[in-house]
């Protein structure tokens, strides 16, 4: 019936063997994959190397590809610098990103599902309005956001940044999920409703498993952008301990000199949790639908 369900009923292994490909082609794919891998990792490998170089080596006019000495202690020292309380910064980032994403999911999922499934007057207007909010340059909005949350008494709180991040990311989340919901044939819903399922049940039991890759894409998109948000955090969060890593990073940039090894070290620390998160959900992200998920 649907493409998704048809595929879902095919065991993975069968597809692989059926796709009888020559060894040469596999090797070509592996080679291309290796080149892609290197290109995508190169900047971050140089970042990692830079983070374990000494302060002098990192600014050497005779640059080195590999660190002459591996100063892994940079990764220890950066947690206790006078510039910024990094442990608290990491905690702030995690809290803001996790709850920001949850909030987006809670609000965007119903809207995306409903607009993709049901016709109602103002549907297109709603979708367009939602995306209009994304067309404003955040750098210009920060001043208004500061005054707004000042009036609400939420300046310098995580809650403020959770709300701001959720609002900033809601529209893309709605649109991405909308696109995937819209790809599921209406008959799936109708069949479920004939079986007596309510709308919520239809959404959660029937639709969600089908559009899971799209949902995860939206979650990741939101999470990453909350994780790295800078412009609003800079003005809304004032206490050093409340600030996220993106703001903490700037504290190493001085007028006369910059602690580049810490800038890059903190960057690595900021990237790692997200990469690990990706590793955990990679299968979900694109692994497709496992057999029998639709019953």
């Amino acid at each position, binding site marked *: 019936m649907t493409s998704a369900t048809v595929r879902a009923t095919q065991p993975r292994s069968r597809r692989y063997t059926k796709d009888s490909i020559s060894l040469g082609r596999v090797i070509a794919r592996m080679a291309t994959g290796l080149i892609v891998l290197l290109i995508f990792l190169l900047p971050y490998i140089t970042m990692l190397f830079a983070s374990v170089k000494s302060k002098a080596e990192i600014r050497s006019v005779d640059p080195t590809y590999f660190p002459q000495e591996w100063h892994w202690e940079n990764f220890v020292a950066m947690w206790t610098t006078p510039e910024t309380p990094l442990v608290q910064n990491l905690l702030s980032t995690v809290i803001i990103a996790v709850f920001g994403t949850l909030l987006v999911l809670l609000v965007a999922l119903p809207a995306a599902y409903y607009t993709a499934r049901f016709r109602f007057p103002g549907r297109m207007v709603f979708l367009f309005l939602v995306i209009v909010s994304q*067309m404003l340059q955040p*750098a210009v909005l920060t001043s208004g956001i500061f005054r707004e949350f000042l009036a609400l008494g939420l300046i310098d709180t995580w809650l403020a940044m959770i709300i701001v991040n959720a609002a900033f990311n809601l*529209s893309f989340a709605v*649109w991405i999920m909308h696109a995937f919901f819209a790809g599921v044939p209406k008959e799936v819903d109708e069949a479920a409703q004939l079986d007596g399922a309510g709308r919520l049940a239809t959404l959660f039991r029937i639709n969600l498993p089908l559009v899971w890759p799209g949902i995860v894409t939206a979650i990741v998109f939101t999470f990453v952008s909350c994780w790295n948000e800078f412009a609003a955090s800079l003005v809304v969060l004032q206490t050093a301990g409340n600030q996220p890593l993106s703001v903490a990073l700037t504290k190493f940039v001085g007028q006369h000199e910059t602690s580049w090894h810490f800038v890059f070290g903190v960057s690595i620390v900021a990237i790692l949790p*997200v990469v690990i998160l990706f590793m955990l959900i990679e299968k979900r992200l694109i692994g*497709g639908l496992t057999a029998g998920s639709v019953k």
Partner: protein
Amino acid sequence: MNSLPNTSAGVDKRHSRRGSSARSTEAHNRRWADLVAALPWITPALIMIFGVVLFPAGLMFYNSTRVISRSGLDKGTAGFGNFAQIFAFPDFGPIVVRTFVWVILVVVLTVLISLALAQLLYKEFPGRRLVRLAVIVPWAASVVMTTLVVYFGLEPYFGIFNKLFIDLGIIHDPAGFGWTKQPETAFLWAIAVAVFVSLPFTTYTILAGLQTVSVDTLEAAKMDGARPARIYVNITLPQLRGAISIAILINIINVFNSLPILRTMTNSIPGYDADTIMTMIFKYIQVQGRVDYASALSVIAFIIVLIVVALYVRVVKPMKEV
């Protein structure tokens, strides 16, 4: 919220049926009922977005018509004086043109490369999982960090990319080449970085779309002896339409609004030969301290992107009909 039924009338006009007055009242009532049924699902999103964005956006529009001192105080009305200043700025025209070049080049390159990448990552081969993870990394890293490390590598004297070019014999000056010190090369590198950081999201959206392409249709086509290129264009691409059109839409808005890449890459260059609207807004705020000019230019930017997106939505129709 109350205005929704009215504003929607135009959109849904072609679906409304004109019949006897009784029938039209009935239809009218049904439309109302449809809207009321939709409210619980969409209202939270509306409150969330506009609760946060409306005031700052309103302030931006208001500020664009005010005179604001360097320290940030409102000094009274400017009428359209700020807009006049922006249009009188001799570099305004080139900056707008460059903004379009920036968006078009970055989005087109991103989509083309992503299509190829997604195709590779869709195919099975040993080590695929690692490659897929590597492709995600630029997404996990913030744009600022990625740009900074590339900028750092391209610096004369200190940059290891420059060292690599010297060691490969491409560059002969032992101090390296000033890639980020000249508007043309800095702009091109900024485009490269922008494409690089846009690839993961775009690739993964397309990849997620590929999962929903019917394998049966593909194999039927294969059995019929269709060439792979034909299968791709005639069967795969049309089914990717939804994913691609959303990815393009999001990329257009994001790339248009993108500030950190160009700011970092072209920051030290004198003049306005590598600026886009966004970096110019930034320069008005940060360097010149003119929040009023920046707001006016932001309003102009908003109108431009609104028109572009409206045209895109109209032509491409990324939201599917129910």
